[in-house]
């Protein structure tokens, strides 16, 4: 009615002191009513899924408040959340369901004091012309931020606008976004970025660019270690592996940066790090897919699968203990430290290969163009009768192409690159689904053969259920396989071809 929902902006520091008796124009700004102080906790996933959408999730006074650009968007009673599917129903849970992955645990990033104070903008007759609501979040006095929410009053829009520019004038600095706010409040817990931007100068050497990419991804892997050890959710290990896999693909895709001997040595060291994590990740994937698998088989066969998955859960606990021992070992710590030092000053420690001094833009263009042509060549050879091996080869080439494009995206401008990556992604989703069903069948067949020697009614039940599941997975594989030619045709349209050519073909390129 007389208060419309007003804009919210966030500034660094405690604004209350600056506001008291400030005087924009002929108006007076005065504190309205007593202030209040409670304790608060800021919650988000480790990778900041909530902040990425411009929102903050606050837990205070036994209540969860989801704060968006327009103020409090949703509120519900409750404690710091956890996994979304386990949260009690409510407006916040509903709002988060489109934002937070069900695999991610919503964590308490940190806590502190929340101070709340309203201010009123009065005219010469003491009439309230606008209100503003200040919420100061204060982990400690150095890192405070103030959430300013303006409440325009009907008929006094201009006063509100004037107040906004006055406040911005007081603060001076630009308002903070949700991510910057979280990072200012709790820099240790909220700074994680799984895809660190690695800027290149077009004429810098491939050697420097490669070192920079690897040096940027090592800390990403390391940042996930505490979450893996504490077993907070499965995505810590996943991100850890993705970071290491990216480093490995840089080493194999960027040929000639280091000497072949050096490259082989590095590849072996990163492969060894990855190898320790494979078993736990496989089991995580099974368990994540548990409900999905159960839905795929007829109800009568589900108890057999449940038995199997209970076994996986036990195996997972053991695998986690083994990985924990590995990550805590002195050898692991030393190896990671050594690798970090190596890539902190690659020029000092690593032997340069034949391509090391080429300018990165020129090098990247040639790599991407060659890889793109390879993708098209393989795809052109695929028809309904082509053996599955070719489809796998296509998938791997697409994956390599995607990595190259993502690594070098900063060189080519966000927009055209994003468009090309998006069309590649659609093709990759089809190929990925095909591959997943194949890999899952192989893995489950292995489970089956591992259990072949075992006796008993339970084993029979498990085997029957697995048989049903394998049938469904095989049907899925066939369906995805049948789509490959059509999805490639959709990728290989003139506009996309022209896009690749424009960005990556050499002068007068073929």
């Amino acid at each position, binding site marked *: *009615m*007389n208060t419309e929902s007003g804009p919210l902006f966030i500034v660094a520091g405690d604004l209350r002191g600056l506001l008291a008796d400030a005087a924009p124009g002929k108006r007076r700004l005065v504190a309205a009513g007593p202030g209040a102080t409670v304790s608060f906790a800021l919650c988000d996933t480790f990778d900041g899924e909530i902040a990425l959408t411009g929102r903050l999730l606050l837990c205070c006074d036994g209540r969860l408040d989801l704060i968006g650009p327009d103020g409090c968007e949703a509120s519900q009673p409750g404690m710091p959340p956890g996994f979304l599917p386990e949260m009690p129903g409510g407006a916040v849970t509903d709002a988060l369901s489109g934002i937070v992955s069900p695999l991610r645990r919503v964590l308490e990033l940190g806590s502190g004091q929340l101070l709340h104070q309203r201010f009123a903008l009065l005219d010469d007759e*003491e009439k*309230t012309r606008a209100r503003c609501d200040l919420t100061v979040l204060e982990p400690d006095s150095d890192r405070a931020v103030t959430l300013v929410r303006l409440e325009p009053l*009907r*008929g*006094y829009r201009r006063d509100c606008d004037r107040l906004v520019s006055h406040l911005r004038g007081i603060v001076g600095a630009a308002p903070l976004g949700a991510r910057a706010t979280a990072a200012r409040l709790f820099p240790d817990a909220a700074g994680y970025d799984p895809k660190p931007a690695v800027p290149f100068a077009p004429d810098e050497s491939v050697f420097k660019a490669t070192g920079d990419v690897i040096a940027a991804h090592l800390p990403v892997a390391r940042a996930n270690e505490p979450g893996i050890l504490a077993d907070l959710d499965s995505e810590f290990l996943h991100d850890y592996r993705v970071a290491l896999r990216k480093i490995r693909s840089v080493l194999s895709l960027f040929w000639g940066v280091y000497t072949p001997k050096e490259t082989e040595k590095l590849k072996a060291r990163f492969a060894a790090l990855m190898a320790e994590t494979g078993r736990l990740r496989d089991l995580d994937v099974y368990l994540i897919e548990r409900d999905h698998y159960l839905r795929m088989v007829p109800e009568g066969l589900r108890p057999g699968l449940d038995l199997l998955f209970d076994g996986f859960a036990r195996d997972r606990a053991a695998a986690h203990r083994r990985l924990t021992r590995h990550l805590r070992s002195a050898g692991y710590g030393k190896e990671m430290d050594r690798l970090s030092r190596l890539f902190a000053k690659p020029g000092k420690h690593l032997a340069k290969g034949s391509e090391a001094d080429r300018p990165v833009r020129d090098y990247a263009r040639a790599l991407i163009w060659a890889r793109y042509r390879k993708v098209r060549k393989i795809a052109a050879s695929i028809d309904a009768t082509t053996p599955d091996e070719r489809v796998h080869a296509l998938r791997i080439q697409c994956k390599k192409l995607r990595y190259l494009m993502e690594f070098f995206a900063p060189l080519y401008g966000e927009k055209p690159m994003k468009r090309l990556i998006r069309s590649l992604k659609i093709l990759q989703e089809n190929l990925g689904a095909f591959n997943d069903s194949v890999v899952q069948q192989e893995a489950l067949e292995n489970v089956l053969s591992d259990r072949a020697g075992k006796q008993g009614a339970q084993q029979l039940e498990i085997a029957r259920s697995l048989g049903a599941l394998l049938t469904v997975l095989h049907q899925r594989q066939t369906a995805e396989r049948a789509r490959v030619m059509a999805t490639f045709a959709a990728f290989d349209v003139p506009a996309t071809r022209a896009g690749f050519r424009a960005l990556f073909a050499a002068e007068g390129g073929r």
Partner: protein
Amino acid sequence: MKIIACYSNKGGVGKTATAVNLAHALAARGQRVLLCDLDPQGASGFYFRVKPSKKLKDARFFQDVARFTAAIRASDFDRLDILPANMSFRDFDVFLSRMKNRRSRLKQALASVGGDYDVIVLDCPPNISTLSENVFRAADAVLVPVIPTTLSERSFDQLLAFFRDHGLPRKKILALFSMAQGAKRLHGETMQRMRAAQGKRFLDVVLPFSTEIEKMGQHRAPVATFARSRALAEAYDRLAQEVLARL
């Protein structure tokens, strides 16, 4: 949406104070209220510190919905808005009929700015001869403060006669005793006599005489926000309850 016209054909009976404090009490009870200041001698806008808008004196004002909605001002109290205009009664007829018509552009314009009100309180001017009977027709209730004196009794009878003569439903009239002094024998007797004659027209609540009403001019705020004695504020709250029950 209900329209309550606060009206008296006799001056100095506490009409504006009733409109102001009733509007405030209704909003405090959760109703979304628009108080329209229609009395050039009244001061409901003044009591809410809302400055009159010059633009509103434009004759073509009501042909322009956007400008009407732009004239509404928020009070300092939740759910209570003020229309501080002094408008002519010809315009006012149009205003009322548009407010009653769900499909009118005025209603839609109000709804679009979050101003779909539950109750509209009109602080009407005291002159019966210029008062359009359409206002009485459009209103859901005509709230009439009556000081329990012989003179007021006569004025009230004149109002009833006006309703009868113009074929207006008299059940719309909600009379209430205002500025009543329990210690005065005359007041007590008048109230008794009028209730006996017009029982159905009178609300149960009686607004006591209080110096707090005069202090509204100093404080420029509804009684409930500053009065030390709660009696008057409670009477206005009971008035709000009774009016809501009758609507």
